[in-house]
């Protein structure tokens, strides 16, 4: 069996004196993908940020390709990891292609830009795009920076929120393709239909995993009540 790309062992994160992630254990190997669902504030973003090495105070085990991102140094642990934040921003106002230039991979950039239907917008400043188009441009940048998918870890925080339907479909296909190509993908989403496409779904509530399994095991009324409350 392939070496684990991601291994979490009772991961816990406390922020501002509050436990945001509590005892999450998860292993993803090359070619495996999982969706993380949960209400707002359930700890999905905090979980992804901890795995991305952005929360040094996180306790418990985190291994990305055998390295602990909290201690391995930024460059070493970043090499095989792509991280897409929930609300990507840019301090300046580059054109779509100038943004893509940051990836330093012109061929990869052109490919992902075209896949996400941004080619016609290539010379437009981000400030002139819609929110969804901007998000798609940032997503194309994340994918271009990832490089070779095999053995890479892709962390996507609500990548389809605010995208139009065709782009949402493209993103679903891309995640599927990258997983087949050997990436390990961990994706948060509020889209239950998309979560149902993943072989594995984790449901978070108040930082804890309340259900972990196939869509049939997780996406049901009992788990729904635990995650979102209600009758």
């Amino acid at each position, binding site marked *: 069996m392939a070496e684990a790309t991601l291994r979490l062992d009772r991961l816990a994160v406390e922020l501002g004196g509050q436990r945001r992630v509590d005892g999450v254990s998860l292993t993803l190997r090359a070619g495996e993908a999982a969706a993380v669902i949960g209400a707002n504030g359930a700890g999905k973003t905090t979980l992804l940020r901890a795995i991305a090495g952005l929360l040094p105070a996180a306790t418990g085990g985190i291994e990305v390709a055998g390295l602990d991102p909290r201690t391995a140094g*930024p460059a070493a642990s*970043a090499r095989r*990891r792509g*991280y897409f*934040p929930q609300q990507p*921003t840019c*301090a300046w106002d580059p*054109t779509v292609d100038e943004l893509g230039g*940051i990836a330093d991979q012109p061929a990869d950039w052109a490919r992902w830009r075209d896949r996400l239907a941004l080619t016609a917008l290539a010379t437009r400043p981000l400030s002139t795009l819609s929110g969804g188009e901007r998000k798609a441009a940032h997503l194309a940048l994340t994918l271009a920076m990832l490089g070779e998918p095999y053995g890479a870890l892709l962390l996507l925080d609500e990548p389809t929120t605010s995208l139009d339907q065709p782009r949402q479909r493209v993103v679903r296909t891309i995640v599927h393709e990258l997983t087949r190509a050997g990436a390990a993908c961990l994706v948060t989403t509020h889209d239950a239909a998309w979560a149902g496409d993943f072989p594995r779904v984790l449901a978070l509530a108040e930082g804890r995993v309340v259900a972990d399994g196939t869509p049939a095991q997780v996406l049901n009324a009992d788990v729904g009540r635990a995650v979102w409350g209600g009758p």
Partner: protein
Amino acid sequence: MRPGRGALVAGLGLLALLAGGALACGSAGLGLGEGGGLALLRLPRVVAALAAGAALGLGGATQQGLFRNPLADPGLTGVFGGAMLGLATLLGFAPGFAWSHAWSLPAAAFAGALTLSGLLVALGRDGPPARLLLIGLGLNAFAAAGTLLIANLAPESRELLVNGGAGDWLGMASPELVVRPALLCLVAGGLLLTLARPLDLLALGEDVAQAAGCDLPGLRRRAIVLTALAAAAATCLVGQIAFVGLLAPHLARALVGPRHHLVLPAAGLAGATLLLVADTLGRSAWPGTPVSAAAVMALLGAPLFILIARRSHG
């Protein structure tokens, strides 16, 4: 489409022409003088304006990139004020030592700039960039008051310090005074150019930059030390002149876009061009009554700055 690299080459050519023109312009009218004598006399001043302007432009672009804020500028964040306070402390309390030890002036300016930068980072840590700028404004006012106080306490250095505070030191440029700070401008500027990649990543936010492998604390340290060095060296050459570091990066982004491998050199070129033009105009446009580079800079720079600000946000 933006002109990109072509703009850098064109800017360099323009700067060379302007520098040639600056050597031929002065209160004595147009011309290089017999055997180039006048040009040789003007050379230290032209070199000083070029080196300081480039250092200021690069320092401003770096601070704007580091704080992800288009208002950041060593003149506003207290780095300049710190450099001036360092110089004032040395010139006010140990003028004999200052003038007999050539490196002591840039060293004192660097110590002052670094102290204020350190205070800025320590006080503004964990806050949004806007708070850092507000703290910088406070530190700058504090440093300016300190400089004035020292000027009042040390009558023999008073005129010199007041002139420095008004950005009017280029007129003193001599080979001995210019060579060391100009060299430091070159070193600091060259090293600042190496920060282009991490500053590009940082533009995407701290999370994305770190997740992409940017060593954020390391970047902050390098950027702050090098900006302090650039500001200190420039202050030794010109005195305090705030507008160059603010305006040059805006001009650069308008010309070459926001990627730092272009913005940093373009801001250096823009800064050198702005200061050279301001100084040349100031010393030759009104023969007999030279005007400080800082005054001309503000006179020309302010309308230009407002124009760019309006265009980039509308």
